[in-house]
């Protein structure tokens, strides 16, 4: 009798599993955990590529991190002549020969500003800490634009940024401490509310997101400045949010489905929250993507980091943060049973 009962129960369970496998909440059930090896290797490959680029190509660091002086020059657009970057380079090299290594970029025209102008950002390594040095530099720039390129340009200085090496070093240091203390506090919180290993999973997913986003910045050599740091922090917060929502479901299902294989519990949990994950990611993607479309030169790298981040963060919370727990949880259970 007893044996029969058990068999029946098993069969029932199998049936439930089967129906669950086929559909959940009216859409197909996806096996996330089953493909975890593929996705974890994919992520490891992406991270490896990113790290190789960090060392080989490095970053297009803005003056926030390197120190230096940036001046933004606006000139009139002449009817029969377009000012080129090569001309500017020639012109400023006559001020000081080192300026031939200056970073010069043409900026987009401003919304609501004059349309018949050209704008350029010129970055040199000098740190002009004193007012007179700065005034001389500004005067020289204006003069060479007039004398070496065209006297009719009417150049004006629109923006001026100076960052000393000291400030740059401080920014790096505080970013390091924020990351370290943040990691420790998150681990403590997640250990208290969940389990230690969940914290490890969440942190690994965060590192994954940050590395891949920075990797894309390195590969395409997009400028990294301090708003980018804010963008990366934002996407980490966002990805963490995503991960925690899955974890809460796993915690709940672990109570409800005590004794079931962890793989199944994790898979079910991800599937249950999937439509939430997709809807949230899509709406967030909409907002940041629109920002990217509208952004001018100042906002563009920032919006780009956010847009990449939403995609990477969503991917990591589905395919990395939870599946990575599986091996650990199973090993822990084996130990538990042995004891």
């Amino acid at each position, binding site marked *: 009798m007893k044996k029969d009962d058990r068999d029946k129960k098993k069969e029932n369970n199998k049936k439930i599993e089967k129906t669950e496998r086929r559909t959940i909440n009216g859409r197909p059930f996806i096996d996330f955990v089953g493909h975890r090896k593929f996705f974890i290797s994919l992520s490891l490959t992406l991270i490896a590529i990113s790290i190789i680029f960090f060392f080989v190509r490095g970053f297009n660091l803005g003056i926030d991190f390197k120190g230096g002086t940036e001046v933004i020059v606006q000139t009139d657009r002449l009817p029969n002549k377009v000012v080129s970057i090569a001309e500017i380079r020639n012109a400023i090299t006559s001020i000081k020969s080192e300026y031939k290594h200056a970073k010069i970029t043409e900026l987009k025209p401003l919304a609501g500003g004059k349309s018949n102008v050209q704008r350029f950002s010129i970055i040199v390594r000098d740190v002009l800490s004193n007012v007179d040095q700065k005034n001389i530099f500004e005067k020289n720039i204006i003069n060479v634009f007039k004398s070496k390129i065209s006297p009719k340009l009417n150049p004006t200085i629109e923006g001026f940024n*100076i960052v000393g090496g000291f400030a740059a070093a401080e920014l790096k240091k505080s970013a390091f401490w924020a990351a370290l203390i943040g990691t420790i506090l998150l681990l403590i919180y997640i250990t208290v509310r969940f389990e230690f290993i969940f914290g490890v999973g969440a942190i690994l997913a965060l590192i994954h997101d940050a590395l891949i986003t920075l990797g894309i910045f390195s590969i395409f050599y997009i400028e990294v400045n301090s708003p980018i740091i804010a963008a990366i922090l934002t996407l980490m917060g966002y990805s963490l949010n995503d991960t925690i929502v899955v974890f809460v479901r796993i915690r709940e299902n672990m109570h409800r489905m005590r004794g079931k294989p962890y793989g199944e519990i994790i898979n079910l949990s991800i599937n249950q929250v999937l439509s939430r994950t997709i809807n949230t990611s899509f709406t967030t993607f909409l907002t940041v993507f*629109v920002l990217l479309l509208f*952004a001018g030169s*100042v906002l563009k790298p920032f919006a780009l980091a956010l847009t990449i981040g939403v995609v990477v963060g969503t991917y990591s919370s589905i395919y990395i943060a939870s599946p990575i727990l599986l091996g650990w949880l199973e090993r822990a259970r084996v130990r538990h049973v042995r004891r």
Partner: protein
Amino acid sequence: MRSEQIRVLIVVAIIALSFIFLLYPEKGSVGNSIFKNIKLGLDIKGGTRLDYRLDLSSVVGQDVNTLAEDVRTVIRRRLDTAGYTEAIVGKVGSGEKTRIRVEIPGITDPSAAERLIGKKARLYFGEILDRTVSPEKPKPKYGFKYEGAKWLKVRNQENTWYLIREDIHIGSRSVRLGGEHVIDARPSVDTQRGGYKVDIKFDSVGRKIFADITRDFVNKQLPIMLDQEVIVAPVVQEPILTGSAEITGKFSYADAKELATLIKSGNLPVNLIKVEERTMGPTLGKDIISRSLKAGIAGLVLVLIYMVLFYRSMGVVADIALLYNAILLFGALAFFRSILTLPGIAGIILTIGTTVDGNIIIFERIKEEMRAGKTVRASIRAGFSKATTTIVDANLTTILAAFVLYYFGTGPIKGFAITLTIGVIGSMFTSLVVSRSMLEALSPFMKNKYVTAEEKGA
């Protein structure tokens, strides 16, 4: 029933408060935009930010905090005297990393202001021991008489050098007279010689010393130095006993004003080293405001439409919740007088995300409960009670991260942490309280479509 009524009351009271903070005309606010009570950071509206480090090598054993406070007071006074009353002078960091931050909104040429800030500007009187004309600094002179004396350049005179000693010998004793004894200095028209002069007034100690010196120095030059420069070396006409003197030199008005400002505002107790400057023209600022406003509105509208398409009547609830939280966030920014910076905008975007997310988590739970065959009312209750844990856990981790950022971050990152924290708390409130009130009020009109569908299928 009572708890529901209380909930509705709180929801209405909070939105009313937000509107008051946002719209109540604050003293000094300009323009007629609905956001006029929100202060914009310099990275958005344009202006200059200057960061200075204290050169602690020149002062040993002094408390950094008091030093920084003194520096702040002096700079504040200098900027006020020169008319930069809108400027903000703040202290950031602590200990060796202490920085003085000066933010001046909306000016295109910050050099004039910068000149005032950076000058240590020690004003003192002295005695001329020798004069020479030389293109370079002359060699120092040695001997008992020349102890402590330095060759200083004379302002507005090429190649002229005076050998100056700060100790002024009157008979057998020596005195010093510095800017700390000056209580007032102001520019005025020099009716005798043309141009402008600076009138100065001494305190009682200064008056006495000055009287002693001038008594001894009739028909002799008494030079006045500012740092390493002789500004002027007037000849003493007669003993001045009243404690009022004038520095004449056919100054331009700007020079006289700068000089007066420097003398009056006192000496900086320590050298300042500029570590960072950010100047952004007002047109660039306008560009950023208009672009991010457009993007914000377009993004918001897209999200609103998407939610209605996907969740129908519940989507309308989410949309109202989203607008509610947006007003709440701006109201809070106005109330705390926070300054909205570029990273702050990132915080707002993340807030839109978490508010929508909170609602989506709840709606998905309610749907699940409905699929399990519960009534609409029961589904809403169960959905909220289960979603609450998720929302609290997810948002508390975000707030935790925001606190770390606030503590370790520099200026703009701090702004990000503030908007994020306010936004996340607001989004928890909106999802768990505002949306709930609305859904419970709507529940009699909603149908459980999943049950009927399954029944049809069966």
